[in-house]
């Protein structure tokens, strides 16, 4: 048995060097060379400044922009670091609400959000993704129904014809991969960027 001690130390260290250092560092170099944009996080620049990542949702509150899904992410409370405060779309601390199907807190939250949305647009049924928090809190997408639902508000706030805004949404609908995998969705940040362009 004692003869197993030497490999236990040396094989471990060598495999650590290979899989823990050589492999990730080599992959960083190769990936950075072949796919530089993705490797850095698919960042979007506008006027020389980074405005976010194409893959990471961000918070939109104003009427002029399409809103993403509710986000349950949090951040340390500046007043007391042992506690956390709500910080939607905190891309340095991802996470979901973790509320279960019989949670009263969740039922109240959803009810309140549904009423707000109904007041905003009484003509369409409320899409479920606009009142449920995503798993990561950073969901970059909403459903096409979720985007179309917001068209009247956005069009009014921007003084654009509804048809024009609706057309922008339609242009930004991403289909299933190969017509089969995943779900049909709209990237909120891409749509809002296009909206800013159209308003110019």
């Amino acid at each position, binding site marked *: *048995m004692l003869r*197993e*001690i*030497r*490999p*236990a130390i*040396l*094989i*471990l260290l*060598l*495999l*650590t060097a*290979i*899989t*823990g*250092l050589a*492999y*990730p560092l080599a992959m960083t170099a190769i*990936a950075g060379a072949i*796919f530089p944009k*993705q*490797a*850095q996080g698919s*960042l979007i620049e506008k006027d020389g400044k*980074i*405005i*976010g*990542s194409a893959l990471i949702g961000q*918070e939109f509150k104003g009427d002029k922009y399409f809103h993403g899904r509710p986000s349950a992410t949090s951040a340390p409370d500046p007043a007391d670091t042992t506690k956390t405060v709500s910080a939607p779309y*905190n*891309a*340095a*601390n*991802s*996470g*979901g*609400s973790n*509320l*279960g*199907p*019989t*949670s009263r807190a*969740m*039922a109240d939250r959803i009810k309140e959000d549904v009423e707000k949305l109904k007041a905003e647009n009484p003509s369409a049924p*409320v*899409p*479920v*993704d606009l009142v*449920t*928090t995503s*798993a*990561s*809190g950073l*969901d*970059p*997408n909403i459903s096409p129904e979720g985007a179309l639902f917001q068209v009247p508000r956005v069009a009014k706030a921007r003084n654009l014809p509804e048809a024009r805004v609706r057309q922008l949404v339609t242009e930004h609908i991403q289909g299933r991969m190969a017509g089969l995998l*995943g*779900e049909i*969705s709209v990237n909120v*940040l891409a749509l809002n960027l296009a909206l800013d362009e159209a308003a110019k």
Partner: protein
Amino acid sequence: MTLIGWFQILLYCAIVVALVKPLGWYMTRVFSGERTFMSPILRPVETALYRVGGVDEKREQHWLTYTVAMLLFHVGGFLIIYGLMRLQALLPLNPAEQSAVAPDLSFNTAISFLTNTNWQNYGGESTLSYLTQMVGLTHQNFLSAATGIALAVAMIRGFSRSSMRTIGNFWVDVVRCTLYVLLPICIVYTLFLVWQGMPQNLGAYVEATTLEGAKQTIAVGPVASQVAIKMLGTNGGGFFNANAAHPFENPTALSNFVQMISIFALGAALTNVFGRMVGNQRQGWAILAVMGVLFIAGVAVTYWAEANGTATLNALGLTGGNMEGKEVRFGIVASSLFAVITTAASCGAVNAMHDSFTALGGMIPLINMQLGEIIVGGVGAGLYGMLLFVVLAIFVAGLMVGRTPEYVGKKIEAREVKMAMLAILVLPLMYLGWTAVAVVLPSAVASMANAGPHGFSEVLYAFTSATGNNGSAFGGLTGNTFFYNLTLASSMFVGRFFMIVPAMALAGSLAAKKSIPPSAGTLPTTGGLFVGLVVGVILIIGGLTFFPALALGPIVEHLAMNANTLF
């Protein structure tokens, strides 16, 4: 449920089954020590490792030596992770300036990665430096996966050999698994993931100014290289807190689909390795069929439950299923499928928050883990877990017809059945025992995020996941407390090693037996009767052990939900 949803599920199953034979063929060659097309590049590295490590690759080990070598290997692995976490503030590659991790959390995480559990009491982007992620976690993802596969192969040798004292050489199995199987696949896989949008860099977190002018700090890092082995090795510990739900850890529907395939690929192929090594591939297919029956049943229930939504959503007229805690790009079907796969295998990565699943939708992941993660299972661990159940099923069948039971040419006798029972019973002892302790301790109850039966489910899920070395969670539970850090670590440790040691003892005792040719009275173990028998034994043993606990959690919650009760 939609037609296109079921089509995705069927396509998934078809691809996994199609990969079984080629991967099984390749892995059999690797573990038989034969040349492969990788040998010209990898053989020199391999021999160099043996030379420095003082390993004689021709010298095989008795089961006890094999097990001791495995344990010694893990002592070192523990020290590396624990040390890195405690010292990360002083070490390089820490652009986010993470401070040292607390001792109890470091202990929990070290045990967690050692045992292939990868329970996340740590927060990923908010806790760990890049160096800890790479040298601590990425490396241990490889080694715990390689260990699992090595142990499964050793167990297979127990069945396939006749009158031998040895079951292989642990060092050779681990090195060959890492170099020939895991590393090459991960290199290609990493590049695919980066292409799909996964970051792979060592830069600082990105400061962005959003369209509305707010500040957003975006965590990045060497993500893809870790995710590749995290999925392939059924480890499941996330680079980010939200794991595979995070858009950087699972950017597209395609990356999601491939990640799901990679969870099952090696585990399913090991059934073929088993078939090839015992000389009849149909023996492997029979085991895969047992897994397949249980898997499809689980997928159907979870998909149905999630698509039906919750009473709260339905009362407000919200259609489209239970989207709380799910991502739009995956939707109901890919989230449900992922949840069943990740708990059937001992992966534990999540692309949706299981805590927010419906009561029945969340019960299936729980059952998958409580059955011992034998439905494909963790790489290696799933196969040796399933073989323990097979031994038991054969024993029960033998009792029924009054013959000494035999399986693939080996007589199953008292010692084998005792070892199999020991390994199977230790799991419920841990997850039921600790759950019982936790629900009477006020400080442990305070960790629950949800009230009512769902809170109980959170605790039961935590200990089940830890004991089964899964690592997924009902994430609302605040697990990063002294009590949970230590009790969960003990569950992970016992769940891994108290299963491995009896399994290896069984392998050793089988290898020492003579192989006997099948006779007219031998129960055929390749047909539907055998598949039905094993499924039955699994469900009866499983059902008897954990049904009462499920009744207190998800079942009562489902009834409460339908009665419109909120907590």
